[in-house]
């Protein structure tokens, strides 16, 4: 509560002191985090909370520092699965969206499939893929990511592909630009900001799916496997250190796609 009440006044103070705007906007959440961490640390010590319930942030930090190479390695393993699934699925989703926007038949065929994919319980299919591809293979995890990522990218891309304004449609006709050339010069560029909005939603989803799929078996390479291993070995601070690694990985995915979205949407109306 103390942390929350401190937040509203912070920007005013920052502005009055003439801080640069980037710092002024970053300061309030930073203050919140620091205050929350302090309270957490104090609570753990004062109330003598056992580590299996909640380790102190200092303990987690120490573990994070000690295990940094392992955490990075595990993050790269999980991140690779997430990235592969994201890229493969996004390419397929965009191509299918182009087909669906071009032909009503394709749209009609794909619509129910997309609904079906949207409700696939990722947790339930992961074990099935480990049986299909073998427990030493990462393929199942990539597929899990691909399934999770497909729907937001496809739905946003299709919406974007239908945003071509009437005046641009007339222009295409007047200039006799048809078929693939019309798609390339007008339709796809119009849709790009929407595609990136979909990708931004999909990016965090990709990391989460890659991580969750590791809970159900397969090779013990990724950050999800490390969390379960640490937790089952009663190394609670270590488990939390890996959780921290997972958060950083997810954040990295999100920020990279956000940056791409900004670049692409610079000179066009964003969705």
């Amino acid at each position, binding site marked *: 509560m103390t942390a929350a009440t401190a937040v509203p006044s912070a920007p005013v103070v920052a502005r009055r002191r003439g801080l640069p705007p980037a710092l002024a906007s970053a300061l309030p959440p930073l203050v919140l985090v620091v205050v929350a961490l302090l309270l957490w640390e104090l609570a753990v010590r004062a109330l003598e909370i056992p580590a299996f319930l909640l380790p102190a942030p200092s303990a987690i930090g120490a573990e994070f520092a000690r295990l940094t190479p392992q955490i990075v390695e595990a993050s790269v393993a999980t991140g690779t699965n997430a990235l592969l699934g994201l890229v493969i699925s996004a390419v397929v989703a965009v191509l299918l969206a182009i087909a669906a926007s071009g032909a009503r038949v394709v749209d009609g065929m794909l619509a129910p499939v997309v609904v079906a994919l949207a409700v696939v319980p990722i947790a339930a299919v992961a074990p099935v893929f480990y049986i299909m591809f073998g427990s030493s293979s990462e393929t199942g995890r990539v597929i899990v990511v691909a399934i999770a990522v497909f729907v937001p990218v496809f739905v946003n891309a299709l919406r974007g592909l239908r945003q071509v304004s009437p*005046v*641009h449609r007339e222009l295409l006709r007047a200039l006799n630009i048809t078929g693939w050339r019309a798609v390339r010069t007008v339709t796809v560029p119009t849709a790009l900001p929407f595609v990136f909005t979909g990708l931004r939603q999909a990016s965090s989803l990709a990391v989460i799916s890659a991580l969750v799929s590791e809970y159900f078996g397969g090779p013990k390479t990724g950050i999800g496997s490390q969390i379960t291993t640490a937790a089952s070995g009663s190394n609670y601070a270590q488990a939390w250190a890996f959780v921290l690694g997972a958060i950083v990985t997810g954040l990295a995915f999100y920020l990279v796609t956000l940056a791409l979205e900004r670049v692409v949407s610079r*000179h066009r109306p964003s969705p």
Partner: protein
Amino acid sequence: MTIIIDTPERLDTTTDAVSVDGVTRIFSARKRGAADVVALSDVSLTVHAGEFVSLIGPSGCGKSTLLRQIADLDQPDAGSVSVFGKTARRARLDQDYGIAFQQAGLLPWRTVSQNIALPLQMHRERGLDVAARVRELIELVGLGDFADRYPDQLSGGMQQRVAIARSLARNPKLLLMDEPFGALDEMTRERMQSELLRICGETGAAVVFVTHSIPEAVFLSHRVVVMSPRPGRVKEVVVMERAGAPVGSDAVRDDAAFFRGVTAVREALHDGAAAGQGVENR
């Protein structure tokens, strides 16, 4: 009723730029019970090569619809349209006209020069230096310093100039313009009108120009086609007098001939009985 128009002082032996013959366009009602809308009823019109013709009339009189028939963006239910002696469709496929709309319709992800280059890139001409032609067009519309800007960095008037430069890219002998200055403020609008006349003088293109504005039509045109709504038809064609001042100069706007033209078009629009000098009645 069919109206055949001929202007004696502009008899041109070359093929007419546009010939509209008895065109009717009916938009069928979507809802059951609603009446069909007759957008154009038996409209005929000839635009000679190099001639500037404005279409004017109240909203819903079919002036934009008529322009769209010429551009082959829409097809008539009866009658025929020919552009330089070809069908409207053939003329569109051959890129015989340039077109500008009320909205500039620029591609926001392309710079000014990339937007102007669009028609040139889509239909490559052998031996044409695209970059040089684009520079020439940018100079023509007075945007020399803005070649690398994006449309969202330009004012409305500048965007419209880019759109006009794009319509001129392939040096068409016919320009179709659907209220291109409709969204601009009065001062920008008058400057753009003068520039358009200068450009037309340089390129010798015929123009079909849709507008709501009587002074705009009078200032720009050789002939003003006055249309009436429901059903859309040509009510009267008013031939403009040559003003004493040089064509396209601002002095024209103060000329007595200009005011006589404005009066004549206004009376034609409002069913006026008195027709001034230089007015062609049905």
